[in-house]
């Protein structure tokens, strides 16, 4: 059964939970991220991933990339609720409309000696991770790719002395030559 926002049972039959990547184009002004985030928390929606930075410096426009989950009706609500936020220019449902390219960057610290150390380096090569810092007892790898590949790489490093991980969250853009922002 679907959980709707209401206390009452949903009127529509069972609906599948889907994952969506949304690009939210906003004015980069104080509090704008808090407005977007508190809409999600206040109305009980999920955020799986969140990335934000200013992308058009002259116009002070930021792009917030959010990966969220819900039934198709909930996703519609999320988009409509986001559009209500005054400094939000546009909400682009990338996964619905544009078969998006999604990439994430991770920095992964691995410490160890001997065979484990060599194995981690070998795996890094296979996963096209770069070494960006090293000592005789550790490596820091930088890896870029789709999230499941990064998950797999981190999973393998766990056996070889994983210390800590920093990930950026997903940046996503629609394919093709069109500008979807405005």
């Amino acid at each position, binding site marked *: 059964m679907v959980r709707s926002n209401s*206390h*009452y049972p949903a009127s*529509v039959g069972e609906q599948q939970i889907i994952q969506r990547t949304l690009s939210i184009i906003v004015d980069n002004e104080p*509090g704008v991220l808090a*407005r977007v985030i508190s809409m999600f928390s206040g109305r009980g929606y999920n955020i799986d991933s969140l990335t934000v930075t200013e992308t058009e410096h002259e116009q002070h426009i930021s792009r917030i990339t959010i990966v969220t989950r819900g039934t198709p009706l909930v996703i519609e609500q999320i988009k*409509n609720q986001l559009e*209500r936020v005054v*400094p939000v220019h546009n909400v682009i449902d990338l996964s619905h409309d544009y078969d998006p390219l999604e990439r994430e960057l991770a920095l992964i610290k691995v410490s160890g000696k001997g065979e484990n150390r060599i194995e981690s380096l070998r795996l890094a090569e296979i996963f096209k991770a770069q070494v960006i810092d090293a000592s005789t007892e550790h490596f820091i790898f930088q890896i870029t790719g789709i999230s499941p590949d990064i998950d797999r790489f981190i999973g393998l490093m766990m056996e070889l002395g994983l210390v800590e991980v920093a990930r950026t969250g997903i940046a996503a853009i629609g394919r093709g030559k069109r500008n979807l922002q405005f």
Partner: protein
Amino acid sequence: MARVMTGAEIVTQVLIDQGVELIFGYPGGAVLPIYDELFKQAKVRHILVRQEGGAVHAAEGYARSTGKIGIVLVTSGPGATNVVTGLTDALMDSIPLVCITGQVPTHLIGSDAFQECDTVGITRSCTKHNYLVKNANDLAAVLHEAFYVAHSGRPGPVVVDVPKDIQFAEGYYLRPSETKSKVSYRPKLKPDHEKIEAAVNLIANAEKPVFYTGGGIINSGPRASKLLRQLVNTTGFPITSTLMGLGAYPASGHHWLGMLGMHGTYEANMTMHGCDVMIAIGARFDDRITGRLDAFSPNSERIQIDIDPSSINKNIYVDIPIIADCAYALEAIIASLKIKALRPSKSSLKNWWKQINAWRSRKSLAYKNSKEFIMPQYAIQRIYELTKNCDTYITTEVGQHQMWAAQFIGFEEPNRWMTSGGLGTMGYGLPAAIGTQLAHPKSLVIDIAGDASILMNIQEMSTAIQYELPVKVFILNNQYMGMVRQWQQLLHGNRYSESYSESLPNFVKLAEAYGAKGIVCSDPSKLDAAIIEMINTPGPVIFDCRVANLANCYPMIPSGKAHNEMLLGNENSEDDIESAIDMKGRTLV
């Protein structure tokens, strides 16, 4: 040529240039420069309330009874936190407000300074938008934008937080015409043509239609009400309304079914349940309206007109969504019906009305009157009968009295009914009556209250006295928080936990202590004379109407039930009523 002014002068100049006549507020350390400017001018009148919460409700009453923006001015810290309830109330009921809050000087923000709070943080989720102004040069543009955001699109409250140093600092003043509003904020007002065509086809082929209308029509302005009346008359369809939409269509109109929802009439709810085409206009399918969602109007195709896309498909799926201001959408529908010369089938409508009249004959609002006690329903009926030829505005608090007022008072015009619908704020009615009375000094303004609700903002009697506002507070005094007690009876085996109004004040003496007139009445045969005395009293009155203690508000859709599972007070036994709500329903609000 832009003029240089201090921040406080800019605030006052914006109010003047925006045509503001009245503001409601309470001074404090962080707004003193603005109060100093108000002192020096004569165009904007300031109304001093007794608690900031009262200022917001007064501004709501003013806004709702005039269609203008309500303005509030309060200080930082506790001033700002006291307005939170009213802002939330205005957000839920889409009331346009601009609330200016003082803030500690910018260099003290974040230092836990005296009377500091994170106003924009606290009010972010209870406003349509809010601003913290950190540069006096931005102040005029931000304030003008706040006015625009508050009243355009789906109206709502906007907070502008102004630190004290910005009130002293100098900046350039800009007139409204010299500022631009945000590119990102462009509410859609005009409907899509193809959606209108689809709606018109559905309307023309409807056999069992109903109009379900809400506060959006009132917010859209008097023109929307006029167009609605026109459309109802040309189609001949029945019409019901939410609590917030009462008055958009006249209660004396032939097609009127009464209010719908949890305490709506049997005919309104059954019509909703049985219809084949539902035309929702400026109404948002709130849970008090729909009852059980999976049994809501099972056989209807639905059209919904709303200015806010997030109101569409939120609770109930609609087949034809029309995103527009209702006046534009109504105009387009009327025009299209005319051009195509489409008329719904007269014979099917006739059958539909026959069915509706059968439902009507159940007389769902009937109650057993008494010669011994004043029945609360009777008291409201008498208020209505004795005031319907006056120029009357009604406000309410929240609870049983509010529902009885909605059931028994017939509203003929929009903007005559001020009540807290979405948030259900006890204490709304008296300050709202004050705001309404200020906007309509010659009119009769009555706050229909309960004995518990009235005490939540009773301090505002002092405001009524100060400004010589002849508001009439009519308390249905049953010595209980009546709606709480009713739910305890229905859900919790008559265990009236904390719902008895212990130690009520002597309301007559209380009125006199404030300098108002107090009237008490407990005898049904003397009620009319007492009400007439209240109406004829030139100043404010508190009327302590002692009513039957344990009356329940019917009809009622119990929680978790559908429109066709109503409890009717005159037909269901006490046992039916106590077992009406199952375990699942008990967990619902």
